[in-house]
């Protein structure tokens, strides 16, 4: 294998760099952010780029850079939280449905159909109306919405893996079903599931920003990217910098996560990783 940093891997490298920057910004926001994310200075509202406020200020005169950094926290918390929920539950459902078959399979996959048949928007609307908007609510809603994605990917993976001889080989050595499931089937089904993680992170950020745009997102004044774009939209003509910066942040981050997913998929693709004879 040649070095990771190569022309071919450029998208992967860039996306990784962006993710690192976003994560760092989120993690170090309390120390790096030049201003408090909630500090209003209405006299300085909508100032555009300046030496004091590199990325300008919003309608309350809050520093956009600082809010983007703190917003990254909310964004990543939600993306990670929702993805974690979806990953754990979805993978488990997919794994059990694919491996155990029968009733479990039927129930597992039909319940996923149910989630899918439910318009995601209405689910979000209802849960937000019920629990009130906020990070926790969003994590739950988005987590539930993405369960089927993981369940289906895992399920189809397991279906193809469970027939493989090495699964039988493991059983043949006296492995318990549990061991076979988690030591053999799961690791071998993992590659597309892992790629799905990054993809889901991207999708969650996208959806979260959409929900924030509709006023269903993170509770103000806590910063979130989606609500920042929604705010900025009102000043699109007068303050194009605000919308440009905030929507570019969303876009670039989502892009980075989905490119990372692509690269991850390629990287984990056994057909690429395992260079043996062609079948």
């Amino acid at each position, binding site marked *: 294998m040649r070095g990771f940093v190569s022309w071919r891997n450029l998208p992967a490298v860039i996306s990784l760099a962006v993710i690192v920057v976003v994560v760092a910004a989120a993690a170090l926001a309390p120390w790096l952010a030049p201003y408090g994310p909630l500090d209003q200075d209405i006299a300085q509202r909508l100032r555009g780029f300046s030496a004091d406020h590199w990325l300008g200020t919003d309608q309350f005169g809050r520093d956009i850079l600082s809010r983007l950094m703190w917003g990254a926290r909310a964004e990543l918390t939600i993306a990670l939280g929702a993805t974690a929920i979806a990953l754990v539950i979805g993978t488990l459902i997919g794994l059990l449905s694919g491996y155990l078959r029968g009733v479990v399979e039927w129930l597992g996959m039909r319940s996923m159909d149910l989630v899918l048949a439910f318009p995601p928007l209405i689910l979000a609307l209802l849960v937000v109306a019920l629990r009130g908007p906020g990070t926790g609510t969003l994590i739950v809603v988005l987590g539930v919405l993405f369960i089927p994605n993981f369940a289906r990917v895992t399920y189809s993976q397991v279906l193809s893996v469970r027939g493989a001889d090495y699964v039988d*080989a*493991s059983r*043949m*050595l*006296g492995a318990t079903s549990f*061991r076979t499931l988690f030591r053999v089937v799961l690791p*071998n089904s993992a590659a597309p599931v892992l790629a799905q993680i990054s993809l889901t992170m991207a999708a969650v950020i996208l959806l979260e920003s959409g929900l924030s745009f509709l006023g269903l997102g993170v509770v103000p004044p806590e910063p979130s990217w989606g609500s920042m774009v929604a705010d900025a939209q009102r000043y699109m003509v007068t303050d194009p910098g605000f919308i440009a910066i905030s929507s570019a942040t969303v876009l670039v981050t989502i892009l980075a996560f989905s490119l990372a997913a692509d690269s991850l998929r390629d990287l984990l693709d056994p057909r690429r990783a*395992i260079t043996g004879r062609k079948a």
Partner: protein
Amino acid sequence: MTEDRAPLVEVRGLGQRFRAGPVRLFGRTPQVVAVDEVDLRIHEGEVVGLVGESGCGKSTLGRTMVRLFEPTSGSITFAGEDITHVRGKRLRELRRDIQFIFQDPSSSLDPRRRIGSLVAEGLEIRGGIPAARRAEMVAEMLDRVGIDPGMARRYPHELSGGQRQRIGIARALILRPRFVVTDEAVSALDLSVQSKILNLLRELKDELKLTYLFISHDLAVVHHVADRIAVMYLGGIVELAPAAELHRRPLHPYTMSLISSIPEGRLAGTEPHRTVRVEGDPPSPVDPPSGCRFHTRCAFARPERCATEKPVLRQLGTGHSVACHFAEEIADGTVTARSAPVPAGPAVPNRTVPDGPHDKLNVAARQLP
């Protein structure tokens, strides 16, 4: 063989059916009868070969015998114990004594684990062996099958096909089983590698006092390895004979056709034999023919009997059994092939190809730049 000794493994009336398609609420769910009432006894230290066409149920029989499948009918006895339906812990314990070597060395090795850990897995599951001792045993076993123990940290894809098959063998044999089913263990390998693996299996057999069921579609390979050979057709055993005898005196028309299909070069050293060709393709196991399964393709078939009555496997000489109504008659020539044996394979209609395309072809060829 000495029939009086108690066999190590015995299957009786073993049947294995699979669902062919989704469960139907109304009517019968179509089924594949992959293995149909098979009787087979394998004695300690014996190698029984199992040959037959693709899809005839060899692997299914092998897998059912090692309880990778739950049999749908019949019984399996191992060392006097009825293991037809053992489950859970007892089944897992049984895995020590009964092992399986898979056909495709690349798909039967978990691509994500190092070969050392693959070979050690059986020991690990079995438990009670300290890690250090395990590593030692793995090294010994790898060495035994001809793999440098230094390669233990490699992944399967970094190995050649022959090496991978060795890992499969090492993994199965490290548990010191008494009975091993090898399912086409050498079919995927090249000629020069194949003989090495065959030799290895043979050595290990002597050394570890193994008993094998050796599955292969290649009669010549089986002939070299097995003491007795069972010929399978569409789920059932049609002939069972000592290896040395089968190709010399095949009794079942299907066995004859199998031997006839083998290219001349491989038959070197055998007496001249009768050329018997099968007709058409194997019928579908979903809807197998009535009576004798083979009658639809058999050149000797007598519809009155063969299409209605199912022949049973019957002894015809020492250790030689056959499931054919007319085995004796065919052998002594009383029953002859319906049509003269087709010399050149399929009936090629005797029609001439119009000259058109050829002329055009030549013109086109001339016009090439």
